[in-house]
């Protein structure tokens, strides 16, 4: 028992000085990270940063005023009022420059706050001023949280008891004006007043926070926990709570490390927070980079699946061992295997005993691809856009542009070629469907059809509706279509004439 009491007494003697900074720091963390959610969502982060820096001018003003006229050192109230005034001045000047010049807001903020901050630093380093004032710019920036006194504790308690109820009471107006200010105006929410309210809360939080925790810690506490929560959470109310929890936990953890290592607490906490942000950037379940990467690698690109189909088609109806497919497609094996699984799921491949076979649907799709590939090869060859030795590779990339309209366009433009530049037949099974109305120009030698319609002036006069025809082989490099009628008459048609006749396919050969 005694030893326990002793333990706590010694704990209080050794570490009692930590309690006040810990309480004050926790309060700062909560208010900053709650208000920060709205600042991040409204893209005002840079403005918070600006207020934090430029308030140095106000602090100095308040300090000097009390010192010179009332001989008081470090009057907190005067410095606070000065800081708030300089915050308002910064916001006003940024607004002024943005409105009346072509300089945009981010630039205006950058100019104004660095200017005001630098002027303050310049001013207090003047010999005639520095005799009056002891403001330590290093601590202004990095903070001196260990040195907080009771008046600052009270200050923070008051600020927290103003800001937190405001956020809770005005939650819906704040949410709606942030998300959709036009609707907010339409249902009678005073949009500008809500914005001023938020700016006032921000200034209050920043000004009181910087007094205690320094510029860097306050700005980081406003932006970083909120941004972390933004990556993790999909709802504003939960984002605010998460942000507060992240802020407080980072503060405690960083504070403990700082005490343990004897480092600067403000800097340590910011380092921890940044670390937490970066790890959630990578690990966040929905919006993290890792989740993104997993999602991407889970979806097999269409192209790879098409390559697999093409590879299996080349086996001409025999089943192919998976290892063979892997050998032909020079892509990472697990992904090729995954695309085989996907193709099986889509009913295009049968997988049995590590061997793959095209289904009827699969064969149809594969032929469609071969058709696209050979048409592209013909196109590349005829247009002369690509050197001969590169035609195959280029066509291999282009064959994935195989939507119906593209292929139809190519086919027509090339005069419905029968063979590609290497002499291989360009399959058109996907076009030739028995019983379907087609242009005569797409028919191949041996096809039988009846004439349904003849369109336009280009239509040959000696073909009558209802007449039955058989296609002969093309002549003159495929530029002339030969039609054989039932009574054995041979007709020659140009591309235009063949395009002008609509027929119904009866039989393919």
């Amino acid at each position: 028992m005694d030893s326990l009491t002793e333990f706590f007494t010694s704990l209080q003697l050794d570490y009692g000085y930590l309690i006040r900074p810990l309480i004050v720091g926790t309060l700062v963390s909560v208010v900053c990270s709650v208000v920060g959610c709205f600042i991040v969502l409204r893209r005002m982060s840079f403005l918070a940063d600006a207020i934090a820096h430029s308030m140095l001018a106000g602090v100095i003003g308040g300090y000097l005023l009390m010192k010179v006229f009332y001989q008081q050192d470090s009057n907190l109230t005067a410095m606070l009022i000065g800081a708030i005034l300089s915050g308002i001045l910064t916001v006003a000047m940024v607004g002024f420059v943005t409105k009346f010049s072509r300089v945009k807001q981010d630039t205006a903020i950058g100019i104004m706050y660095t200017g005001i901050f630098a002027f303050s630093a310049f001013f207090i380093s003047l010999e005639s001023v520095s005799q009056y004032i002891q403001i330590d710019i290093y601590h202004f920036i990095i903070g001196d949280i260990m040195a907080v006194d009771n008046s600052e504790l009270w200050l923070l308690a008051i600020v927290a008891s103003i800001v937190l109820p405001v956020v809770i009471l005005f939650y819906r107006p704040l949410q709606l004006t942030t998300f959709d200010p036009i609707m907010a105006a339409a249902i009678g929410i005073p949009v500008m007043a809500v914005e001023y309210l938020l700016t006032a809360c921000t200034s209050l939080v920043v000004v009181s926070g910087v007094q205690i925790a320094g510029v860097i810690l306050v700005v980081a506490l406003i932006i970083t926990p909120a941004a972390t929560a933004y990556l993790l959470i999909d709802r504003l109310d939960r984002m605010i709570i998460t942000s507060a929890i992240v802020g407080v936990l980072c503060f405690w953890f960083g504070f403990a490390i700082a005490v343990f290592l004897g480092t600067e607490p403000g800097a340590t906490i910011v380092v921890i927070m940044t670390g937490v942000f970066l790890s959630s950037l990578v690990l966040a379940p929905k919006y993290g980079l890792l989740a993104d990467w997993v999602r991407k690698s889970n979806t097999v690109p269409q192209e790879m699946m098409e390559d697999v189909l093409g590879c299996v088609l080349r086996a001409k109806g025999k089943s192919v061992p998976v290892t063979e497919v892997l050998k032909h497609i020079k892509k990472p094996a697990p992904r090729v295997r995954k695309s085989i699984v996907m193709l099986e799921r889509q009913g295009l491949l049968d997988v049995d005993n590590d061997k793959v076979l095209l289904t009827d649907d699969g064969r149809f799709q594969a032929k469609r691809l071969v058709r696209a590939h050979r048409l592209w090869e013909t196109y590349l060859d005829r247009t002369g856009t690509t050197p001969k030795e590169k035609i195959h590779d280029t066509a291999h990339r282009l064959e994935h542009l195989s939507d119906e309209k593209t292929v139809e366009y190519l086919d027509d433009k090339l005069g419905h070629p029968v063979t590609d530049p290497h002499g291989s037949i360009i399959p058109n099974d996907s076009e030739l469907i028995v019983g379907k109305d087609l242009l005569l120009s797409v028919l191949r030698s041996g096809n039988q059809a009846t004439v349904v319609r003849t369109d336009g002036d280009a239509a040959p006069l000696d073909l009558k509706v209802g007449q039955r025809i058989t296609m002969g082989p093309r002549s003159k490099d495929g530029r002339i279509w030969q039609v054989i009628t039932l009574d054995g008459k041979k007709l020659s048609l140009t591309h235009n004439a063949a395009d002008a006749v609509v027929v119904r396919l009866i039989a393919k050969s």
Partner: protein
Amino acid sequence: MIVNANKSIEVPAIKVQHLTVSYGPVPALLDVSVEIPQGKLVGIIGPNGSGKSTLMKSMLGFIKPDVGTVEIFGTDVTQVKGRVAYVPQRGSVDWDFPITVREVAAMGRYSYRRWWQDLKKEDLRLADEALEKVRMSDFRDRQIGQLSGGQQQRVFMARALAQDAEILLLDEPFAGVDAATERAILDVLQETKEAGKTVVVVHHDLGTAAEYFNLIILLKQRLFAFGTPFQVLNPKLLTDVYEGNLKVFAELAKQSSDDTGDGTGDEVNDG
């Protein structure tokens, strides 16, 4: 005294008088006066940058005009609360905002509660009903960014329905949605109109304007015409308004005067 008795019928849903709005040296709207009667489906059309959205924002009380007034059912727009519902243009919404489909729909009920009050169970029920109407119930708990374009548009339709306002304003609801969604939105608009409400739509497709709307406001900084599609979509007026696009419009104007039905004119937008 007869005038008094008929007041509720005669008072226009939206009355815009001598409205001039400017953002810079050139006015976005110049001396626009128009009276939109109750219970009509009205289209605002005009080329890009013709002040269509500005007119709409003025009707919502979001923009303070340089000169002029906007009255909603005879009351100045700044005094009117929640009688006008609004569906924003898709491009102007922050789709990354941490908010779910249901929460957006529930926003329609905000105007029924004081700002410090919580939403009631009934409000959530009405929000759910509105989502049901636009067939978005299955996506209730999704974050709004994880929807397709048409679905996103329907969520905001649900919000407007939940608000149950007498006037519905939509900013380019048909931009970039598929044909099915376009049909679905149009059906909801027709239903809303038949329920006696006034619907105003900013629209850029001249080809469909005649088919969709009872009345058309033709706008380019100033009011060029206001009337039935037959009155407004005449070649003379259209070439006046769309001067930069004469070639495209010679064709279109011809179509719309020949047959006030279906034209095709997606090209209208990109002038």
